[in-house]
């Protein structure tokens, strides 16, 4: 998952704590192995190497593709799991190296979820296109790991994968306390939130951006232009029932650019936006 992962569990039983930690870790590794595009043997790599041939996927992958399809529709096409090919020209390494317009135009034909053939459980990804569950995977893993931890118990538990987290209920001593990093810093909480239960997810460019001529280009991409969304907050944190839902609301907010706060107000969710 490329970020620190932790499980907090209210228990006095060390074995139980170990088994909970293991259950969460197993689930995280399982999802990573299955959906990471960096792993050659993952389902996603198999789909991406299909060269336009139909691939039959298992039920879990089908459910994730369905979810991505819903999000594509709900966001009017702004959220798109085929947009990962833009990585071929954009490298958010903190430098000032922007791609050329020609480089962006070269990959744009390979973007668009509507070009994907999806007739569950069979997906057909045209040659040159790719799926990337990076925008969903971590939040999905948080929800699944929490379910794995609490499958056999009713303790108060919280699973935190690099700032995306979900909790069953508050421990006896009061709500969970969650710090949100100040953009551009590490380990310095800009906000301290209290969470009874539910999930928090954060979308932001804290670590992934380009800076050129004073303009900051975050890694949230506008699939219609092939350029990063402009005017988006540095970071958006949203509270919702499930981590996957919170994460998607945060992503949608970032995709709204300058309208992020207005979008979140309209949704009636608790959120924290950090700018500047």
């Amino acid at each position: 998952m490329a970020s620190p992962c932790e499980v907090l569990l209210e228990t006095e039983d060390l074995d139980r704590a170990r088994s909970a930690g293991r259950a969460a870790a197993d689930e995280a590794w399982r999802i990573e192995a299955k959906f990471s595009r960096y792993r050659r043997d993952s389902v996603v790599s198999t789909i991406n190497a299909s060269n336009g041939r139909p691939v039959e996927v298992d039920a879990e992958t089908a459910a994730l593709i369905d979810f991505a399809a819903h999000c594509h529709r709900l966001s009017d096409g702004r959220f798109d799991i085929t947009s990962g090919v833009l990585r071929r020209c954009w490298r958010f390494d903190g430098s000032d190296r922007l791609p050329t317009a020609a480089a962006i135009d070269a990959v744009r034909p390979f973007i668009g979820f509507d070009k994907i053939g999806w007739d569950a459980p069979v997906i057909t990804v045209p040659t040159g296109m790719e799926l990337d569950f990076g925008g969903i995977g971590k939040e999905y893993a948080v929800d699944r790991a929490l379910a794995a931890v609490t499958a056999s118990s009713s303790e108060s538990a919280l699973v935190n994968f690099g700032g995306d987290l979900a909790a069953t209920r508050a421990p006896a001593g009061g709500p969970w306390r969650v710090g949100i990093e100040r953009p551009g810093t590490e380990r310095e909480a800009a906000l301290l939130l209290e969470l009874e239960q539910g999930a928090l997810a954060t979308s932001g460019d804290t670590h992934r951006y380009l800076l050129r001529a004073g303009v900051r280009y975050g890694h949230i991409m506008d699939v219609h232009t092939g350029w990063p969304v402009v005017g988006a907050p540095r970071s958006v944190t949203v509270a919702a029932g499930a981590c996957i839902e919170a994460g998607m609301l945060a992503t949608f907010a970032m995709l709204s650019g300058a309208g992020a706060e207005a979008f979140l107000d309209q949704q009636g969710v608790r959120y924290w936006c950090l700018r500047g």
Partner: protein
Amino acid sequence: MQLKKPPTPLRLGLMAASCALLGSPAAKAQTAADGEQPLLIDAGVLYYKEDQGRVQTIEPIVRFKKDYGDEHVLGVTLAFDSLTGGSPNGAIPSRKAQTFATPSGTSLQPVSGVPQTYTTPSGQVVAALAKVTLYSVQPALLPLDPNFHDRRIAADVSWAQPVATDTHASIAGHLSNELDFDSAAFNAALSHDFNGKNTTVSAGVNGELDAVKPIGGAPVGGSDYTQLLKNGSKSKDVVGGLLGVTQVMSRRWVAQLNYTYDKSNGYLTDPYKIVSVVDGTGTETGYRFESRPDKRTRQSLYFGNKAYVGGEVLDISYRRSKDDWGIKSDTVDGRLRIDLGNDIYLEPHARWYHQGAADFYHLYLNQSDALPAYLSADPRLADFKATTFGAKFGVGFGGNTELSLRIEQYQQKPTDTTSSLAALQGLNLNPGLKTVIVQLGWRYDY
């Protein structure tokens, strides 16, 4: 920031999509599929019965399969069976009663103090060893050795695992023991997936070493039956290989093409089979022990298909084999798995088989002809057609238990069954075979 207001359509849509995603049970099933799997036990009892009081067997079999995760799979199979009944000894029916000795005899030559005598087909009366048990066959009936019995115990162990990206290896060993036969075998195979796992090529090698310990000793091939010339135990070995390609042809069709080659060396004769020798009228004048070449090379080409047709799974295959004994065979096999709902399925099965006779197959030998180097009257080496019809019925209980019942009938129809010789006219010299197979299976996934 407003907190109390009805959810927007987008929010509702997102909630619904999240619930659908997290509520899907698939992830759990997938957890099991990737990680260590519980033990799978597959047990069954096979009942096999040939018509007219021939061989019957009951075979309990238990299979264990354990998946240690990441496609590391251990398989263990244990089988035990016990055969009883009559087995054709190779001689043809006759107009008169025929007498034979069970294979336990070592010689029919006179030995002092021996209580039994034996009249050879040529009318010679000889004393037999006490160990010899004689049996008579009524006129016009196919000679069956009624004392045929055997028991077999067999164990198989296999291991399969990935060895590199998209490459899997497997090894397996086999040991079995019968009253008169011990066998040890192994095979090893490698397979590699290409093309986004749409194409798999595989290659394998196999070997087998057998000890043949015929009861009463291995007869001298082609020798006169009444001499009971036997000389101890024999052995044989088999080496072979396989090359195969499996291709996903479309979303609903997977095809497989396999080529196999194997070469047997050693004692390939059936020590219990004899060949009738007749004179110009068709009257028995004696019998000869059969004799087969000590080498056999077999090749076969298999084309298998699994297709999803109209909601059901069709499995249809064709196999062409030939060997250097002159046997050529064709097999067409088809199964259709029909899902009846509620975890119940029905799987009708039909198979058609045809083979040509071995070069040295003779229904009987003419006394006036020179004794051929190789000879056998084993019905399994004759030219025949065979059909199998049956069905399997399975019921699943609670997702991890399945009970199944398979009932099949097999019928073998030889092509060459009559003779124009006077004494043999009207006799069916190779009446073929009908068998019933019933298999009860139980499968449990812990």
